[in-house]
């Protein structure tokens, strides 16, 4: 399952399963815990800005807030314990407010979602798409460019930036289907039943015809 589909379908039970199985962090997945839901501490703000910058400068990804990730016995960074967030709605509101300030230029399409396990308590998840307009600088006191490789954070070098600024613009093609459905009449019927539906084929995703 790609990370966009995971963002759309994830439930608190899935996160509990990640913790139970010791899900590893990877190119498109990061676990974070926060000190305060108001995101006032310097560490929380910088953490958010760096992660936003590194995901959008790489190939996008998900941040799951409210999970403690530590190295396990084999030295692998993985989900180890829940660190559920109280005042979840406040966190979502703060994340929405900070998204516009955390990186420069602003990233389009960043989404935040609350996953409640109890009233106003639980996890949050952030979807960060890959940007076509990068590179994006982490702000909120950081003022550096980052990228992600594997489960690690790298400060971008001069040649990385040179490459990104000079990168050729790319097309993003999608295919649209329109199904005109006609049910031909049988001998005894006089009506021809017709229906029409339209759908997009985005990618990569799980599709359902509507």
């Amino acid at each position, binding site marked *: 399952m790609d990370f966009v589909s995971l963002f759309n379908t994830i439930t608190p039970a899935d996160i509990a399963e990640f913790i139970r199985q010791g899900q590893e962090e990877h190119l498109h997945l990061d676990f974070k815990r926060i000190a305060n839901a108001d995101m006032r501490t310097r560490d929380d703000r910088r953490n958010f800005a760096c992660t936003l910058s590194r995901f959008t400068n790489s190939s996008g990804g998900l941040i799951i807030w409210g999970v403690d990730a530590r190295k396990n016995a084999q030295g692998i960074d993985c989900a180890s314990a829940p660190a559920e967030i109280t005042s979840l709605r406040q966190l979502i509101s703060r994340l929405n407010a900070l998204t516009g300030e955390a990186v420069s230029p602003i990233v389009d399409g960043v989404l935040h979602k609350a996953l409640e396990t109890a009233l106003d308590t639980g996890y949050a998840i952030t979807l960060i798409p890959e940007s076509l307009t990068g590179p994006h600088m982490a702000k909120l006191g950081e003022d550096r460019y980052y990228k992600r490789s594997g489960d690690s954070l790298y400060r971008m070098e001069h040649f990385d930036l040179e490459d990104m600024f000079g990168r050729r*613009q*790319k097309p993003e*093609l*999608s295919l649209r*289907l329109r*199904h005109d459905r006609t049910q031909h009449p049988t001998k005894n019927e006089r*009506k021809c039943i017709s229906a029409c539906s339209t759908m*997009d084929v985005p990618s990569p995703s799980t599709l359902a015809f509507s």
Partner: protein
Amino acid sequence: MHFSLLNNGRAVAKHAGFFVKFENAELRHVIGLQNVSHLNPGQPSVCYYDDRTVVHPNGISMHARHVIFHRVNACQDVVLNITYYCEDMKFRSDKVPLPSPPLTTARSSSAT
């Protein structure tokens, strides 16, 4: 089934094309596309390729013609295995099921 291409990117899409393999379908008419079923034994398939025009990133879909097909087994889904591509974009594949419509009788259709 009508096919159209849309460019949501930031550069023109050159050499755009797609390939569609149908399951549980029989092609009746292929209009503006190439019927390549003979190259894919036993499986109805069509392809589209345009090396003369580009798809501009302007939010306007470019209609790439259509096919008329017949559902072989009325109770089963028709499945479209789609691959599409253009220059400077990695090819993308997806599987699109078209659910079989509910069976309609003359009486129920006149009621609706």
